[in-house]
């Protein structure tokens, strides 16, 4: 029913901006990954796929990938578990749904540095908020745990990350769930479905498209994640917190140490890009379902 003219007119501005300021520079960058260069106006040295072969045997990159997968899977399970729980509870007829929804989303609107600083205060040994709460509760052995010591810091970071993300995905999923006609819920309630069953059997399948969207967003987020772990890691981030994207940043942008391996860094970026593509395609394939229209 749609005329070609409208299709073109509606797509053109987005497409032009997208091509000009994302695809074109991205291609330029991708091209750069075939060179060894610091990016300081020198003439880059052609190394072909050299950067990529190096990447394959770079244990730091693999370590970062492992961290990334942990975030994607463990963090994902926690985030979505919470988001589902909140969606379910908020839609079970609680009073003050709007208020709760806003408060759950709240962390997302605060600058990441503020959040990480807050969490470092929570986890800080000796004076920290968590430590003092545990002490006050008489749990001295728990209180003496150093939550941010190298062996724990990744999980401490994950707690903060999940705290933020749960709110973000709750909002998206709730927005989806609101589209489900209320009589669906009513019918299910009459048939004796519990809050959990309603969520699992009615809401979830009916907003499957939204779920898929959020899963894809989460994966992309997990793959590209920089800010939160980076800020959490402080001025000289620990390798325990590296994600590939952070590694990219460190290798290419002279953070603290004057490492300016822009070519290599770009290769990491390209690898991440393809990782994203594979993940999106995989997710779409695995979670594909018929579209539900109501």
């Amino acid at each position, binding site marked *: 029913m749609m005329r070609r003219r409208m299709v073109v007119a509606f797509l053109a501005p987005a497409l032009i901006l997208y091509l000009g300021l994302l695809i074109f520079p991205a291609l330029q960058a991708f091209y750069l990954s075939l060179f060894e260069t610091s990016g300081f106006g020198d003439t880059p040295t052609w190394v072909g796929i050299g950067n990529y072969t190096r990447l394959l045997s770079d244990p730091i990159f693999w370590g970062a990938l492992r961290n990334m997968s942990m975030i994607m899977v463990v963090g994902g399970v926690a985030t979505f578990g919470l988001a589902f729980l909140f969606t379910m509870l908020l839609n079970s007829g609680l009073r003050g749904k709007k208020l709760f929804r806003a408060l759950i989303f709240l*962390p997302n609107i*605060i600058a990441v540095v503020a959040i990480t600083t807050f969490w470092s205060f929570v986890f800080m040994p000796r004076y920290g908020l968590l430590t003092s709460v545990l002490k006050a509760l008489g749990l001295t052995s728990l209180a003496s745990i150093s939550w941010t010591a190298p062996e724990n810091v990744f999980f401490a970071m994950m707690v903060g990350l999940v705290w933020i993300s749960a709110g973000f995905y709750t909002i998206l999923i709730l927005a989806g769930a609101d589209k489900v006609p209320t009589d669906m819920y009513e019918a299910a309630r009459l048939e004796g479905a519990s809050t959990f069953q309603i969520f699992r059997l009615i809401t979830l399948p009916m907003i499957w498209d939204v779920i898929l969207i959020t899963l894809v967003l989460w994966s992309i987020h997990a793959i590209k994640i920089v800010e939160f772990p980076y800020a959490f890691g402080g001025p000289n981030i620990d390798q325990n917190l590296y994600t590939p994207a952070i590694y990219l940043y460190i290798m290419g942008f002279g953070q603290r140490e004057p490492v300016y391996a822009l070519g290599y860094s770009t290769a990491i970026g390209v690898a991440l890009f393809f990782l994203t593509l594979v993940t999106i395609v995989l997710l779409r394939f695995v979670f594909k379902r018929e579209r539900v229209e109501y």
Partner: protein
Amino acid sequence: MNKFLTLRGAKRGFSYLVVGGWSAFSVFFILWIILASLKRNRDLFGKPWSIPIDPAWGNYVKTWVNNRFGDYFLNSLIVTSVSVAALLLVSVPAAYVLSRGRFAGRQALSNFFAFGMGVPIPLLFVPLFVIMTTMRLGDSLTGLSIVYVALSIPFSIYVLEGFFASLPSELESAAIIDGCSDFQVFRHVMLPLAGPGIATVAILNFVGLWNEYQLSLVLLNSPENRTLSLGIYSLITSMQYSGGDWAGLFAGVTIVMVPTILLFIILSERMISGITMGGVK
């Protein structure tokens, strides 16, 4: 009977406990930041639980005046709102066409846009700087806005497509019968119905751009052009060499945080009052 009631009460109570507890933590978080912004540095670290009986308002004055947060605030507001508005203007129609149009290559194009989400932003720093400088948009808020719009397109289109796709096609039929041209179907029926989705995307982008600093760091130089998040960023980086004013940092964070919270409260009302599909039967 009574047993039922209490069981139900217990379930209810559990719901409130979980949701309420989580929300309470958010409130605590905000309060803590605000309180921290009123403390002296020494107490901040020594007594993180303490309440500043003698609030150090000076932290705000310092941040607002010395660090030009007043100017930054205005910049942020302009850049963010203009970008979000422009972004919606560009991506809503595109998402609509991509999700409800019928033309060859629609799916491919939609995927093509989605793939943009996979490009790591740091890769674009140098090329974007070069492009912006060549177009004489370097170091300007306009340039920054344009970049913001372009880089937010994939995410926005992706999410919006989902919202458009699930609207009942019956309404499209009705509008066509009512004499709407394809544009009018969009303008008068689909667009308002996707309102909650658009508001959601607007909020998410607003929040994201309001706190964005990496791109602005690369693209902006002049202090008078800086945004609030850059201001925060420079506060943090100045911790090294010129003094760790953490309380001041929290004052800055509070300044950045308050408008977002306000905006969120206003916009979320819109987002939340999702249109119930009562009319379709």
